[in-house]
């Protein structure tokens, strides 16, 4: 027996990136723009989608990622949109994020040819989802004011990787000690100038702008071949 050093020189996440690129190729061919929608658990992702997707002027579908259950998919399907639920609990104790391969496994269940926009609602988590690209065109995250001002500083990878940050639950601001200026200062320290919107999924305040933004993303995709 002898020992040999094998040169690898490869990002350990390359395997995921390769599959993400394959997903992206399929999305492009179908003319679908894809948004990877991320946040901590309970920040209001599903409620925001319920607010904006029903009245969208493009054809949207949703891929729901959860450790377990179909509660979110059931809510979205009430909007009469194509929705597929992905559960990650087959993994090691329940994966805490979606990776490119999980998304790939669900593509056959989605009518991509009939969609302009696919929203992938990731598992609630501010850490792992930021590491794994799934083939998306844009990354959007939701940060609720109930989470505190320090979150951008604690999860810089997530906040830096998004092109839009939705600051949700602003209807609660009067009941909280949340310092919005401090939050925005921290956000600008981590991701200077990133687009941000103040919204309330509950009252609908500010969600019109998010709806228009999604419609803009849907129009980015090349027309289906």
């Amino acid at each position, binding site marked *: 027996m002898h020992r*040999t050093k094998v040169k690898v020189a490869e*990002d350990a*996440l390359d395997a995921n990136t390769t599959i993400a690129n394959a997903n992206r190729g399929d999305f492009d061919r179908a003319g679908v723009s894809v948004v990877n929608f991320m946040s901590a658990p309970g920040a209001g992702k599903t409620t925001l989608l319920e607010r904006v997707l029903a009245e969208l002027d493009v054809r949207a579908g949703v891929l729901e990622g959860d450790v377990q259950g179909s509660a979110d998919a059931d809510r979205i399907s009430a909007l009469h949109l194509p929705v597929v639920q992905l559960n990650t609990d087959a993994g090691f104790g329940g994966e805490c994020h979606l990776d490119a391969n999980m998304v790939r496994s669900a593509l056959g269940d989605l009518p991509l040819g009939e969609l302009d926009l696919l929203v992938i609602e990731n598992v609630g988590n501010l850490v792992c989802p930021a590491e794994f690209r799934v083939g998306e065109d844009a990354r959007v995250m939701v940060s609720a004011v109930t989470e505190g001002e320090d979150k951008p500083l604690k999860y810089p990878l997530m906040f830096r990787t998004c092109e839009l940050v939705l600051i949700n639950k602003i209807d609660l601001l009067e009941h909280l000690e949340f310092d919005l200026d401090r939050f925005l200062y921290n956000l600008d320290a981590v991701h200077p100038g990133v687009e941000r919107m103040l919204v309330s999924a509950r009252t609908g305040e500010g969600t019109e702008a998010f709806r228009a933004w999604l419609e803009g993303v849907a129009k980015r995709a090349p027309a289906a071949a």
Partner: protein
Amino acid sequence: MHELSLSTAILDTTLRHAEGRRVKSVQMRIGAMRQVVPESLEFYFGIVTRDTDAAGAVLEVEYLPARLRCLGCGEEWEPELPMFRCPSCLRAEIETLSGTEFEIESIVVEEEEAGCIAPK
């Protein structure tokens, strides 16, 4: 907490390159901006490699600091806090020189001696 999924990714890449040989060690470079906790990564790597060709393999990681450069004034610095703005001219247009690495440089594998040695 992402160390478990990262360990799995490291294992997958390692086994692909090991091509069935036993893995003795893995050499990596990980940047500070990946927010990896060294003890946690080591712990999970030990678990995910169980019953694989990499069981017992040592994870040897070189941790690299985050290093940024301002595209305006050229200032270079290593941020203590996650602050992505030039400390000198306050511009936000910066580039990352290092800190995002998550690279496997090499692996050390054990192989059987070949039955015969090819003539030179």
